Structure formats: structure tokens, C-alpha cells
């Protein structure tokens, strides 16, 4: 709950600006509740730490400024809170010179709610709303808690986020399924045409196995929050909410993201994962990506992004021929070397070029396997170096 006292603080512009930007993604831009367009700036009386909070009532982001910034604050021991319009504050701070910014707000006894900012000789007064009106950050009951490496979580989100559906009529598919079981976190996303699955290891797990579907908007924020390779993200999952907490031990800064989980039952995706393959092509990822990108220029007009992949033996070498056709533009033909078993039959299969580019772009491996059965059955893309990721792609049918 916000304190009723006024706020007096001084902090470097950059730290404040970074904090406002971090929480800005949770701030609602179109709402009937004016308070949701504001950020809450709060100073804790006991620790003297400054935190900034933004919410749209589905997602909350709370950012605590670095210790250095907190230490530079004036008036330690005086707690207080103020709200200010997020958009105006962001624009103002982005235009201010690199210097300390003094924040001052009257308490609720003042004539109006306003935040005064002073930076060098610039003085601004931003009209705000009563801090008490700001929705409190939910306190999660810690059912299941575990930690994951920042880099692992970032990669897992990146490698599945592209497969999230944009179809609002099936809300459950607009998020990423986070399934925690036996110390392994599995991220899954599907838009019914493709399915991406990534597994990562967790530490300090506490609580029963659980799962929940987090909205894609919140998960894309995780990519920003979990930047840097050091450190861990603490994940807490309860009935209908999930919390991600990132702490920077060096600077003392920290960010917490809490979001509601999407209600509903995620489809039983396991049943569509091919259990076997009879043709496995080993392909250099970068070469395939570049070839598909070029062919997609032709494929995007008139043939619904269709590229046809055909494995064959050309001049004694196993080759993957990629073709695309468009009545308006012309034809594309690319050939790249592949490796496959000597007795494997040739295969021809059509995929949506965008889907291939999406999955090839999020992988950072040198080689990949393309596992196929028939031309109208799903294909699976796996990195050659690891077994913790795969993407199932449905082909296109020529009609």
C-alpha cells in the first residue's frame, strides 16, 4: 500500500529513466481508469529504496533502482509516494541532461497531487493522481518456486515465442505454456501450424510440479528483464499468477514482473509430436536460412509463402533443392549440400517460408536435423548439438 507522506528524493537521470522505461511496458495506454496510465514512484522509509511500478491490471512490473542511486537520495528515512503520467515522464526524462534529478511531491494533505522534477536549472511540475488509488502489487502465495539461469530463460522464451498464436479467438494459444516438472522447466508454444518446445534445467526448486500459460506480452518483457548472462531469475507460480524476479547483485537493482495466467486448458500437444522419422536430413543452419530468405522473396507473392524442399542426389552429392514460384515475380531455385543416410529415399515437402525462417532465426547452432516422414505429415527441426529443443512444422499442401 502506498504511503501517504510526500516524496523527496534525488537520483541520477539515467537510473530513473531506465526504471521508467522498464515498467512502461506494463502501463496501460488505453483504459477507462486514469490511474493505470500513471507510474507509482515509491520510497521505502526503512531501507530508503526507490521503486517504480506500472500496471494494466493484467501485468505488474516493479523496478527497484540500483543501490548507488538509492544512496544518492536525499532525505533517507522519509518514506513517500507519488504518481505521474508514464508517457509524459518518459518523454521528459529522455530530454533531460545527464545530471541528478530531484523529485519532490506533496503528501495527500497538499492542494493537489503533483510531482516536481528539477534537473540543473530545469523545473517541471507533473500533475498526478492520489498514490492510494494505484492498484497494489499482488502478493503471491508461493506454491512453486524455482530459479533458472537468465541466459537459459531468455533463450527458452526466444525459441518458443515466435510460435505463439495471434488468434484472439483461441486465447489459450496466445501464451507460452510453462510446465515445471522434476526440476525441468518446459516452455511450449503453438499456433496450430507449428509447435516449439524447449526444456531448461532449474535449481533450488521448491513446491509441487505445476504449469501455467503466461501471456506472450509478458514473456517478451522477460527477454528484456533477463538481459545479461550472469545471475538467475526466480520464478514463482501460483493458481492464476506467475512472478519473475530478477535481482542484480552488483548494483542492487531488481525487477519483478507479475502476470495473470491465461485461463483454460492448453491442448495436449504431446500427441502431435512425431514419434519417429524415416528421413533425416542434416543441414547447415545458416546456409539453409539464407537460401530460404532469398527464396521467400519470390514465394511471398502468389504462392502463399510456399517453398518446396526436395532432397536428391545431384552429381553424386546429397543436395537439398529449394524452389519457389510466383506468377508475378518468377522462379527461385537454391541448392545446398546436406548429409543423409545412403539408403534414404528422396523426399519432397512444401513449407511456409516464414515458419522456416522463424525457427532457423532463433537457433544459434551450426547444424540442424530436419526429420520427415511423408510430404503431408509434420516435419521436425532439431539442433544437432543439443536435444533440449525441437520445433514441429506442418507442411503446406498443394491444392
Amino acid at each position, binding site marked *: 500500500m502506498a504511503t501517504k507522506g510526500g516524496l523527496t528524493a534525488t537520483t541520477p537521470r539515467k537510473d530513473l529513466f531506465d526504471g521508467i522505461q522498464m515498467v512502461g511496458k506494463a502501463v496501460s495506454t488505453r483504459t477507462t481508469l486514469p490511474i493505470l496510465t500513471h507510474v507509482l514512484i515509491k520510497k521505502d522509509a526503512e531501507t530508503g529504496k526507490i521503486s517504480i511500478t506500472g500496471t494494466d491490471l493484467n501485468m505488474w512490473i516493479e523496478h527497484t533502482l540500483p543501490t548507488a542511486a538509492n544512496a544518492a537520495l536525499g532525505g533517507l528515512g522519509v518514506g513517500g509516494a507519488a504518481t505521474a503520467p508514464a508517457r509524459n515522464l518518459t518523454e521528459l526524462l529522455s530530454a533531460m541532461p545527464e545530471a541528478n534529478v530531484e523529485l519532490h511531491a506533496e503528501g495527500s494533505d497538499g492542494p493537489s497531487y503533483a510531482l516536481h522534477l528539477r534537473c540543473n536549472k530545469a523545473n517541471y511540475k507533473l500533475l498526478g493522481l492520489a498514490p492510494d488509488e494505484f492498484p497494489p502489487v499482488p502478493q503471491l502465495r508461493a506454491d512453486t518456486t524455482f530459479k533458472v539461469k537468465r541466459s537459459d530463460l531468455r533463450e527458452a522464451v526466444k525459441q518458443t515465442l515466435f510460435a505463439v498464436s495471434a488468434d484472439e479467438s483461441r486465447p489459450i494459444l496466445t501464451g507460452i505454456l510453462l510446465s515445471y516438472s522434476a526440476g525441468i522447466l518446459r516452455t511450449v508454444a503453438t499456433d496450430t*501450424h507449428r509447435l516449439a518446445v524447449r526444456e531448461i534445467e532449474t535449481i533450488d526448486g521448491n513446491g509441487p510440479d505445476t504449469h501455467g500459460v503466461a501471456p506472450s506480452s509478458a514473456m517478451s518483457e522477460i527477454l528484456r528483464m533477463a538481459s545479461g548472462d550472469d545471475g538467475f531469475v526466480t520464478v514463482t507460480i501460483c493458481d492464476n499468477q506467475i512472478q519473475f524476479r530478477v535481482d542484480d547483485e552488483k548494483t542492487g537493482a531488481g525487477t519483478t514482473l507479475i502476470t495473470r495466467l491465461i485461463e*483454460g*486448458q492448453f491442448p495436449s500437444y504431446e500427441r502431435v509430436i512425431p514419434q519417429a522419422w524415416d528421413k533425416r536430413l542434416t543441414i547447415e543452419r545458416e546456409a539453409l536460412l539464407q537460401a530460404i530468405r532469398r527464396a521467400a522473396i519470390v514465394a511471398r507473392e502468389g504462392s502463399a509463402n510456399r517453398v518446396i524442399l526436395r532432397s536428391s542426389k545431384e552429381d553424386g552429392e546429397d543436395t537439398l533443392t529449394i524452389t519457389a514460384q510466383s506468377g508475378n515475380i518468377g522462379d527461385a531455385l537454391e541448392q545446398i549440400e546436406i548429409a543423409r543416410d545412403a539408403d534414404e529415399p528422396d523426399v519432397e515437402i512444401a513449407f511456409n517460408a516464414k515458419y522456416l525462417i522463424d525457427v532457423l532465426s532463433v537457433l544459434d547452432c551450426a547444424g540442424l536435423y530436419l526429420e520427415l516422414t511423408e510430404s503431408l505429415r509434420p516435419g521436425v527441426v532439431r539442433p544437432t548439438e543439443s536435444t533440449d529443443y525441437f520445433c514441429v512444422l506442418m*507442411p*503446406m499442401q*498443394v491444392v
Partner: protein
Amino acid sequence: MVACFWLDGIGIACERSRLPHLAEQPIALAGEDDLLRAVSSEARAYGVRPGQAIVFAKSLCQGLIVLPYDLAAYTDSAEAVWDGVASESGVVEPLSPELVYAWMTGTDIPQRLQTLALSLADRSKTEVRAGLGRSKLVARQAARSRWAAEGVVVAGAGAREEALIAPVALAALAVLPAKVRARALRIGVGTLGDVMGLPPAEIDRQFKECGALLRRLAAGDDGDPVKAIWPPKGIEQAIAFDDEVGDEHLLHQALEICAHKIAARLSLERTYCRTLALTVCLEGGESIAGQEPLASPARDSIVLERASRRLLGRLMVDRPVLGITLKASRLTSGASAQLALLSEDENGLTYEQREKLTATLAHLKGKFGIAAVTPGRLLRRAQRIHLWTYRLGQVKNEPVEVVTDPSGAPVRIYRAAIGGRPSVTPVCYEVRWIQNSWREADWLRGELSEMMCYRVLTEPDGLYELHHRGTNWRLCAVYD
């Protein structure tokens, strides 16, 4: 010179050849927009005209029989006409079953055209109007003019050509931008004749950059040359046997070779074929031929070979064979359909809908008892008792379009979906014989509802059970 052939009665003629009892009846063909696209001369006598709404046309002619416009069937019969035109010209552009253009060169063009029109009329059993002009616009107007009924109209340059194209409404010229058509209407210029009456400078002033296009059209030049799109390009593979062959195994081997070569050519040209045709040259010089539209565009040798074997079986070859020709036509690069991983179930429900339905049913069962909830299909099955007839294997519940004879009995069935997949054009089945018909009643939403049931044999071969309730026809069972 551009020749235009206008066969506005081909649809009516096609329907009358399929349904002889419609002869001398006032009939009309209507599109999916419920507007008439063709009318018979008997209907014209009542004032019924193409473009009218069905309801209005029926108010003019009480006994008017309206049939759905069957583009696929009319195109099939028009192909013979197009072939006839192609025998005279190497550049043939059919635009619809009713309209075909050709580029004619050489001497005595009007006489040749006259002879050709007469032979086409004889072949298609409908009136063929022909017109000649220096552009498609002029030739079409010549063919549609009232003089065309008496013979080929040649639109020479000068007053006759002007008289032909002057009544053409600007609103009917799709080549003109909509804003130009709207502007022309606002300033009282409705036809090409009106444009001819304006000084060129005034046309340019009024229509700016489109002025030149309008002046060109008024001079009879549409800038649209005749394109050579008929006969369609195909890939042909023939095998001539040294001796007469009567062994089916050898014929299959020959088909396999042809299919393999065609598949390789298709793959090389990166195209697919939609139709496969087989011509078998028999002992004595006679040939029999058949063709099969493929379910989906194909270039796989196995698919082509299977289709060719089906064709051979259908041709019922009863004499030794001298040679075979396999032809893949209607070549296309193919459209694409993205397949889905988590598709809807057989009831058309998504995973979420299925989950919600299951939860609702569980709730209802919990509240009212297990016996209170019974699947509809079980109820339907329980009410159907086949006492005097055998049960057909595949139970279906598929809405179909049915054309009936005057007594209300089905004569033709149009299926829009085969095997649960929507078909681009409805598949037509001619009713050869009504094996049985009976009345049936069942409970529908708490009321006793009667319907008429027919068990029919069709061409292509099939045994279907149709239910007719009110204005709806449903295909309820198929013999498998």
C-alpha cells in the same frame, strides 16, 4: 481481325440435353447471387431477362424453372466449341462458356467464320452468333448486335463500327477506373456514343490522364489483344507398340513409363497437373479416350500412374492395343493450403470447445443424472429401423443441392464437400434410377417431422440415400 463467338444459350442447351423433359419449358439459370445469368426463349416471351432477381422473374413467369448455373458442366460442353474454333485459329481465348475470342488471319475471313459458326451451332445445339472487328470490344458488340442472328457481322471501320459501339455503357467497361465512370455519369456521359460526341480537348479536360484511354475506347481500340490460352498447354507421352498388345500387364508397364516421364517433366518445369487424359489406339485404327480430373494437383509419378490405371480400367479396352498416349494438362504451379497440427475434430470443434462441451456435459450429468444426457447421434440411430431395406454402410449428414423433376423426384445431386473436405466446385451426380422412395417421420425438437426419402443410383456410380425435409435436402447415407 478479332472474331468473337457469342453462345448465350449454351447453358440452357446443356441443361436440356441432360434433362430432356425441360424442352420447351421456360427455364432460367441463376448464379449464387440469385440473379439470372441465362434465360430460355420461352422465358423471354414472359419478359424474363438475364440480370433479374429470381423472385422478380418468377413474378413475371409463374412456371419458370430456375436451375443453378453449373459452370463446370457448361465449360465441359463449351470445350468442344473451343476446339472447333482452335481448328481455324491458333490464337483462341475463351473467357466463359458463352464467350470466346479468336485471332483470324488469311483471306475470306467472313466466309470462313460463317461456315465455322454454323458448324459450331450444329455441334453445340445452340445458336452461335459471330462478329468480326479490329478489337475485342468491337467484335463482341458485332456478335451481340441484332444483325448477328442472320450471319456474321463484320464491323468495318467507319459508320458501322461507330453504330455498333456507340450504345456501350461506360459503366460496363471494367477497364475504366471507378472514379472516371462516376465522373462521366455526373456530367451526363453514359455511353461511348456520348464520348464520341465530345471534342477531344474537352475529353482531356474532363478526364485528365484517363482522357486518352477514353478516346481510344471510343475509337474502338481496347488495347487488349487475344491471348492464346486454348488448347491448354499439356505434357504428352506416347508409346507405340511394335505388335498388338492384349496383355494388361504390358499396358500397365507402358503406363508406368509414361507416368514416370511426365512426372520428371513436370518436376523439371516445376508445375503440377490437374487433369490426366489417356488415349488408347485400338486394333483397326479406332481410338478411345478418357480423362480424369485429379483430386489435387500432382506431379508424383505414383499418383499419375494410379490415375492412368484407373482411366485404363474405365475405358474397358476389349481389343488388342496398338499404342497409348498419356497427357497431363491444366498445368499449374498450384495454390497452397497450410495444414494444421491441432485441427478441429470430426464435429468441427476446436480443442477448447471440446473441453468446454465435456465440462458442460459433466455438469449436466452431475445435476440431472447420467441418463439425462444422450448424444444426438445415438438418438437418431435408435429411431432408424430398417425393416424392409438394407442399411447403407457410410452414414452421413451432408447438405446437398438437388435438382428435381416436376414431380419433385431428384434428377441431379450437387455435393459441395466430399470426404469432409469442401470442394472448389460442387461435384455433380446424375440420378440414373430411383431404386426406392418412402416417407419417414421422426421427432425433431419435440415435434413430429415428416420427410421424403429416396435411395438413388447415380452416374458416376454410386448408391445414395437422400432425405428431403421442407426445402432442405440432405445426403444421409452412401453405399460403400
